[in-house]
């Protein structure tokens, strides 16, 4: 076993393990209908502690702790209580929705959730988030232009990106010719049974819709059905071996899989051990998703916003990026990183080229919230 556990992999596994022991959904379900929360008006004083829930392995990390968090404490006097307790979007949402629906605080000031799940927009719709205190975030000007206006939060009133990642195709050049298109992945007979797709509807659908010549950022019933049928066909024919979270990484690096729909950041980590792995944005187009910092109701918006401002300094973002290997949302971080770690700064999976970014989109957030689509999708992936 040489494979390094990537962040998502670790999380997914931990989540699955946790799910065996607990029934988060059951507990979460105890929440009744939503009630108005008292929502703390943020005053402009910094709290002593900032409670920050994030995914594991998603910040700079040394034996002594997290250097950037220590720097924040030095600069502001606020101690960050850092929890690595988000395993996957669905179970984390299951955990927090009970208290939030009863108007209780979840004892966190910042949480991080992915916008290719329906949860960030659902949290806004339910009124379970505090607005950012933008007066405390002048550095918001450093946000990548392409990330400034997501359709679920057009003015970034409630969210600020932590990291992004791309969804594309990974392949093992020892086992197959380059797999550069989604068509190839779904229909090339040489790959039969050696291919996996992703369980996240947004990820897989984005790639397949692009391959169909449709627009994944504006889903219609017709384009959705067309993509669904095409995937169903690939499943029925035995082309698709499994739908996975990032548990594709083990089989991919071991050689059980020739190609897989995969996340860019995972592959950066897998490549460290297996030089035969490659990742690319499919010719027709790929996906991009963003993990967003959000302030749950009851959180301290001013302190949280002050922290967000801190990580949007290019130098701090560079320090985090040097460890994390996903896509940095902060303009100027690349230049800073060139000074500390030029190799990482050169990696196009971490700082993608404009050409790559032009060829990826986020999946339609309306479609992500469409119960009918979600159900059809779940039925497809567990038939």
């Amino acid at each position, binding site marked *: *076993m040489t494979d390094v556990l990537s962040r998502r992999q670790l999380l997914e*596994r931990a989540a*699955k*393990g946790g*799910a*065996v022991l607990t*029934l*988060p*959904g*059951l507990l979460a*379900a*105890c929440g009744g*209908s*939503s009630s108005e929360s008292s929502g703390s008006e943020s005053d402009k004083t910094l709290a002593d502690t900032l409670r920050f829930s994030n995914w594991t392995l998603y910040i700079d990390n040394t034996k002594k702790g997290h250097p950037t968090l220590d720097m924040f404490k030095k600069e502001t006097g606020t101690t960050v209580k850092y929890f690595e307790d988000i395993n996957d979007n*669905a*179970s984390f*949402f*299951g955990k927090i*929705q009970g208290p939030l629906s009863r108007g209780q605080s979840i004892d966190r000031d910042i949480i991080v959730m992915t916008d290719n799940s329906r949860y960030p927009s*659902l949290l806004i*719709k339910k009124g379970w988030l505090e607005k950012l205190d933008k007066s405390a975030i002048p550095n918001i000007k450093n946000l990548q232009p392409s990330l400034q206006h997501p359709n679920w939060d057009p003015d970034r009133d409630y969210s600020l990106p932590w990291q992004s990642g791309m969804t594309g195709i990974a392949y093992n050049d020892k086992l197959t010719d380059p797999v550069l298109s989604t068509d190839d992945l779904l229909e090339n007979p040489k790959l039969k*049974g050696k291919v996996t797709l992703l369980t996240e509807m947004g990820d897989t659908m984005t790639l397949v819709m692009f391959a169909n010549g449709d627009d994944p950022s504006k889903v219609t019933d017709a384009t959705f059905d067309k993509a669904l049928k095409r995937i169903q066909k690939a*499943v029925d024919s035995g082309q*698709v*071996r*499994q*739908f996975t979270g990032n*548990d594709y990484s*083990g*089989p991919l690096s*071991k*050689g*059980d899989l020739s190609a897989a729909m995969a996340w860019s950041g995972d592959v950066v980590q897998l490549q460290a051990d297996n030089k035969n792995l490659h990742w690319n944005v499919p010719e027709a187009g790929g996906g991009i998703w963003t993990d967003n910092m959000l302030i749950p109701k009851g959180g301290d918006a001013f302190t949280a916003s002050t922290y967000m401002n801190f990580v949007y300094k290019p130098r701090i973002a560079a320090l985090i990026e040097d460890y994390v290997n996903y896509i940095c949302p902060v303009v100027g971080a690349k230049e800073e990183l060139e000074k500390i770690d030029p190799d990482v700064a050169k990696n196009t999976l971490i700082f993608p080229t404009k050409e790559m970014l032009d060829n990826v989109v986020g999946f339609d957030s309306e479609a992500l*919230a469409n*119960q009918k689509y*979600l*159900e059809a999708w*779940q*039925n*497809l*992936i*567990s*038939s």
Partner: protein
Amino acid sequence: MGFLHRHRNLTPYLLLAPGLLYLALFFVVPLCFLAYQSLESGTFDIGYSFTWAWGNYWDAIHNYRDQFIRSLEYAGIATILALVFAYPLAYWIAFRGGRWKNLLLLFIVAPFFVTYLIRTLAWETILADEGPVVGFLRSIGILDDDGRLLATGTAVVAGITYNFFPFMALPLYVSLEQIDERLIEAAQDLYASKWKAFLRVTLPLSLPGVVAGTLLTFIPAAGDFINAQLLGSSQNHMIGNVIQSKFLELTDYPAAAAMSFVLMAAILLMVAFYARLVGTEKLTG
């Protein structure tokens, strides 16, 4: 002391109280809640309300019949396999283990020192396409050259069998261990062959272990979803996978609750049938 002395007949109830309270709080209450929830209708976005929505049950059975049947089938096969593998092993340890008994038992329990998830992931490696098991099966022609085990029902059943093996082996061992060997000697003295003595004496006496083992294996196995998720393909998903996705991915709590009840009912029915078949006294030894 005086109180207990005067109300001596209360003592057993007082001793029972913590256990009963625990069960009431963590089993009965959630169960009632689940039953209530299974009859709600609505969506997560607008909220669920109680409407005696019996349709949830019909939908559960009607839409997911395949996964229900598959769950019972996989769990059934795995239980039988575990029994076939565990019986000789438990027998051998109980009667021939000698001073190594405890060590051998430790070997059976040893996998429990590793978490469930990691154990299952290890099977991913064992059954890998380029791994030794598949290689061997290909070389003797059981699998064709691009045949595989991972992402098949076989792998799921193998995973379940392995993961629940100790639940089968330990009760078997306990019941075999308790058998008075003089009974077997007596049978042989009365001209029973070894095989006949086993069939007429050992096997019937070990039946409580068989029953306990099969129930302890079958019941959790039928609700398992980890093995199907990691070792199976989407066509091998069990009802546990569907319930999990309904709860977490779709936040469709009523549907998930209804499915949980249908699964419970199916298992109860099968257990009741089984108990009748072998006789209830065997259940309690």
